[in-house]
């Protein structure tokens, strides 16, 4: 009994000493709760505005006509229906060719063509309905293109929207590796020129090796292998020293001095510490993916979107050949595909000769001696 009394007294003393502290905590709790209440109220207002917007979008969609052409599903303002339908029918075939079997994915999505009311001109906007999410249960309309009503506007709009929608189904390692939307069209000579200049100008050893056809180096450049030790994966020892020499920003002075004297350990230590300056940006992955899709035929894009494999494996699956073969073609194209010289063309020659002739004839017919 005595023991219990002692414990009670000790507890009372402890409670008395912490009373002040508890009072402060209670104040803090009250302030936090009040802040939470205020934020909740603001969230409710924002949510109701959003729901009202989504509701209005949903209702306005109900007022639109529906057009189906091939795999395209289009909601269109009544006034534009006839021309949009005709345009969509013309575009459905080329889209099938561009996207292959992946065009079937379009049947799960909506493209919207609306008349614009905010202009005195006869204008329209082409949009697509993005995937419904938690925040936007109806799906948000994302504008693709707007301008004066014309067949070319619809054509460009359908193509861009279709590519967005098809690629939006891709949620896999390769889409994260690309870090951008894939354009499945054939790579242009301009894009190959960019690849060539990027590779030829790259200051890493891996870049030079890749340019010279070393496929393993290309895999490093394109991040198709995990980057475990960037300084040694991107550079050889001479390259590391050159890199440190060029980048005066690498400023850990003892390491820098030792590196420049030929101590490769110091170079590696310095570069490992400053990884951001070592790894060049991965700007070329899009062209590899485009090439893989073109190599893989009509079902390639579908395979690329569906696969959950690593980027290297995904590209091989897409192209239907080993990744090394894809990269060999990629390097060859980068080296060989080029734009024709703009210096001379038949048009320039014909135009110039015509004007020389015209001026010559005018000179002969001058009235100076008459």
């Amino acid at each position, binding site marked *: 009994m005595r023991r219990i009394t002692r414990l009670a007294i000790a507890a009372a003393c402890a409670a008395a000493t912490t009373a002040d502290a508890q009072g402060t905590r209670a104040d803090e709790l009250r302030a936090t709760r009040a802040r939470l209440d205020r934020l909740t109220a603001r969230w409710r207002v924002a949510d109701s505005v959003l729901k009202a917007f989504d509701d209005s979008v949903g209702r306005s969609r109900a007022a639109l006509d529906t057009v189906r052409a091939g795999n395209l599903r289009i909601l269109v303002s009544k006034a534009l229906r006839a021309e949009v339908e005709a345009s969509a029918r013309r575009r459905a075939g080329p889209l099938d060719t561009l996207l292959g079997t992946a065009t079937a994915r379009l049947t799960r999505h909506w493209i919207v063509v609306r008349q614009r009311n905010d202009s005195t001109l006869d204008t329209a906007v082409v949009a697509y309905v993005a995937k419904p999410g938690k925040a936007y249960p109806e799906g948000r309309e994302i504008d693709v293109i707007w301008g004066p009503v014309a067949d070319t506007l619809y054509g460009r709009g359908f193509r861009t929207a279709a590519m967005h929608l098809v690629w939006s189904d891709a949620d896999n390692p390769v889409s994260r590796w690309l870090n951008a939307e894939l354009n499945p069209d054939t790579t242009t000579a301009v894009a190959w020129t960019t690849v*060539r200049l990027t590779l030829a100008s790259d200051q890493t050893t891996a870049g030079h090796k890749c340019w010279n056809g070393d496929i393993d180096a290309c895999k490093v450049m394109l991040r198709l292998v995990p980057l475990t030790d960037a300084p040694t994966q991107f550079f050889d020892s001479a390259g590391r020293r050159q890199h440190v020499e060029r980048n005066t920003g690498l400023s850990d002075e003892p390491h820098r001095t030792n590196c420049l004297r030929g101590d490769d350990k110091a170079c590696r230590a310095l570069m490992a510490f400053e990884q951001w300056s070592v790894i060049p940006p991965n700007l070329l992955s899009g062209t590899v993916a485009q090439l893989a899709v073109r190599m893989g035929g009509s079902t390639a894009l579908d395979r690329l979107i569906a696969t959950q494999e690593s980027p290297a494996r995904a590209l091989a699956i897409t192209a239907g050949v080993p990744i090394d073969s894809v990269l060999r073609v990629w390097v060859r194209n980068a080296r060989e595909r080029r734009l024709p010289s703009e210096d001379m063309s038949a048009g320039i020659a014909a*135009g110039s000769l015509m004007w020389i002739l015209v*001026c010559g004839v005018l*000179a002969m017919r*001058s009235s100076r001696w008459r």
Partner: protein
Amino acid sequence: MFSAILWSQWKATRALVLVVTVLVFAAPLFSLQVAYTAFSPVQFVSSMQSFGALYSIMAAVAGLLVALSAWRLDHAGHHVYALALPLSRARYAAYRFTAGLVFLLPIAVGLLIGCLLVAISGLIPDGLHAYPIALTLRFTLAALVAYAVFFAISAATNKTAGMIIGVIASLFFAQYLLNVFAGNTYDILEPTVNFIFVRPGILSVFAGRWMLVDA
């Protein structure tokens, strides 16, 4: 008769032709010397591109100088020599015109040699390509166009030359009036410039990129 006109015109033109030939021969080599310091192919191309305007200006100057020297002696002698010849005006002008065309050839050859030296120098970065023949053809055509235009103007009467200058001045004046009275709503200069410099405009050969080395 043509050989006599060719010879007399050559004597009046050769100094100019020689100077211009040396300049155009040196231009590609100079551009290489400047671009060679670039640390990447992209910078090399960009450096070479900056010399594009130089080629077009040299083509225009070459055409202008050869055209003016073609008529210089006739203008100085008030065309008495030409009138004394048993030749029609058209035939005489055709001989002069053709002789001037011939004198542009050494200039083109000078440029071609300069460009070829750059192409075979081994100093062009891997991944880039040289276009010596395309550039020389473009230069030659541009020089010929400039020559033909200035030859025609020079062959015309003072009245015609005055009319051409008058038309150009009128355009600028009309644009000025439009700006004053109608604000910046109307632009007649831009379509005119486009008409002249966009293909198949008379000076379109001068517009666009002139690249000795490109990606």
